[in-house]
């Protein structure tokens, strides 16, 4: 049953990605995309429920489950955007990235290794806020990609696709900045709760593991973004920065999280 739900989730998200990219060129594909998203989302929700019942708690204890939840939340937010702003072509940008991240997670171990006595409220907050923070960073990078695409058309003076479909540059720039600000609020809570949890469990605030250090790097990178914006950074440079910063997030998940996890041993 679980494997079947994973397969349907993949088919739904994958075909939705393709359909939403096609919808940039031909509007009628949008309804196919929407239908596929719904199918994928229902299948993944089914998987989440099944897993939650099995574990007796929300499935986010392993990196594999965590990415599934991250994907699920991203798609729900996308679904809400489509519901309220059906004309906004986020799907063609967001879904391929989300699907790829989720697909990447399929190679990860599914064994839960955090000993039960280490579980607690702080850990729940730590993991939960990390999901929200990363979803916000993902969306910010999507708006930045959209910004650069539309900007490219305007600069090249060959208006074609994005000129007609995407919101104004100013709007996308502001959305990206707002999402990063929101993401930073969550991510700061993630770090603080992690630090307090470490003190509680290991009796030290900071473990200097690769994951800790890299997460601090991500936090500093986004803080720098906010500082630079306050100093007048806008538009092109800000968009490139937001996209690059999200790469740090992806590296944190797949490179640091898998190969240099240190005390974040939830994936060994």
């Amino acid at each position, binding site marked *: 049953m679980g494997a079947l739900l994973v397969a349907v989730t993949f088919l739904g998200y994958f075909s939705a990605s393709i359909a939403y990219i096609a919808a940039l060129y031909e509007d009628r594909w949008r309804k196919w995309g929407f239908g596929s998203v719904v199918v994928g989302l229902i299948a993944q929700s089914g998987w989440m429920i099944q897993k939650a019942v099995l574990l007796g708690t929300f499935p986010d204890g392993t990196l594999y489950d965590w990415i599934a939840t991250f994907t699920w939340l991203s798609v729900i937010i996308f679904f809400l955007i489509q519901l309220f702003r059906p004309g906004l072509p986020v799907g063609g940008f967001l879904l391929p990235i989300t699907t790829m991240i989720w697909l990447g997670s399929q190679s990860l171990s599914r064994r839960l290794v955090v000993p039960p006595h280490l579980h607690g409220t702080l850990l729940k907050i730590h993991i939960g806020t990390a999901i929200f923070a990363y979803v916000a960073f993902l969306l910010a990078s999507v708006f930045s990609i959209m910004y650069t695409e539309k900007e490219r058309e305007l600069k090249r003076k060959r208006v074609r696709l994005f000129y*007609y479909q995407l919101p104004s540059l100013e709007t996308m720039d502001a959305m990206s900045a707002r999402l990063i600000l929101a993401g930073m609020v969550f991510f700061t809570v993630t770090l603080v709760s992690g630090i307090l949890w470490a003190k509680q469990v290991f009796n030290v605030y900071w473990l200097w593991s690769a994951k800790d250090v890299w997460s601090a790097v991500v936090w500093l990178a986004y803080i720098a973004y906010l500082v630079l914006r306050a100093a007048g950074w806008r538009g092109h440079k800000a968009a490139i920065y937001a996209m690059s910063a999200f790469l740090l997030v992806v590296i944190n998940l797949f490179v640091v999280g898998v190969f240099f996890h240190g005390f974040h041993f939830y994936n060994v």
Partner: protein
Amino acid sequence: MLFQVVGINHKTASLKIRTQVGLTPDQIVSAYQRVNELQGQQGIVILSTCNRTELYVAGNVGYSAIVNWWGSIVGVGRREFSDSLFWYSDVKAFDHLFRVACGLDSMVLGETQILGQVKDAYELSQDHGATGALHRLFRSALSAGKRAHAETAISHNALSMGHAVAELARKVFGDLSRTSAVVIGAGEMGKLVARHLASANVGSLSIINRTQTRGQLLAEEVHGSYVSWDRLPEALVSADIVVAATHASHLLVTKQLMKKAIKGRTERLRFLFDLSVPRNLDPDIVRLGSGIFLYDIDDVNDVVNANLRQRQKEAGKVEKIIQEEIESLKKDLAASEVGPVIRQLRDKAESIRQTEVEKALNRLAHLSDADKQIVAETTRLILNKFLNDAMVGMRAWAGDKDKEEYIQAVRELFQLDEVKERTSTPPVAQAVQPEQ
């Protein structure tokens, strides 16, 4: 019933002829007062705008009768304009009206004004009780027009230079109410752009012009402010949108000047339009910051052309809507041909039944009320059962050209009174509904 349209438009006739035979509002009123001169007509709507004059006529009226009548209203001999006329009948006439209402037949593809003009023409005809059998056609056309604008982007994207400038600015800044614009030059192009920016709700609008009076005049018109020529460098500092449209033969804004103006805020988004030939803005200005966009007159023209291609793409979707609406109109019209026959047949049978039942019951005075009820009910059931197959059969004939003669045969066979039906317009809501 025959539907036809006779008309001229910007494609078939020169402005001179269009002016000669175009109907003034007074002439349209007098035409509606003279509709009875047109033998056999069962509805007329006259659409007259500067680009087209079209007469929609329902009923068996000859083409030449319509043209002669038209000529007599505008006082122009038939020969003088008959070569410029187009004529369509039935589905082609529907198609023409639908295309007109959706803006597909307009000079500016997809423009919305014509839909309002079609609506006005229809309402004026209604006011004079002249619409007759054209009600349904015009209602469908208006709803097709509304759908075309609501469901497709046929009327989106600017097709004029001034409008395109405002649109391009919106693509960058979104809401223009927080932006400030400077228009250099109060000539024709400057005026056009300033007006479009003003109607796009630009936050602040400054007009710079060498001749003060002209600049002030435009500034007043667009509720902007006039800025004297020598204060151009300061005006550039706070400007998000700069439009240059002068006849100056040299660069008005050099790279140096712009560099000074944007000092310390190089990342800010700015849109510069150089609509002058030769250039007024140094093309190298774009290198000053990644947020600077500079479009010259050719670039804006390219956008207008791309927009036109977008509208042409949308036109395909509008054609689909038109086909759908025409199909449903055809069904409605067919049902309305059969509907009255069915109704008359039933009414006639019912009135005979009532008369005969009344007579019989008078002779059967000894029956109780309950028994009388049974007798009346029995006759009603006999009649309904007998007519049922005929009614179902006739409804199936609706829309079938081959069966039109059958409907006529039923009329003659049962001697159904059609005079009443023809002269009075049935209430639309009732007529649109097929008979139950």
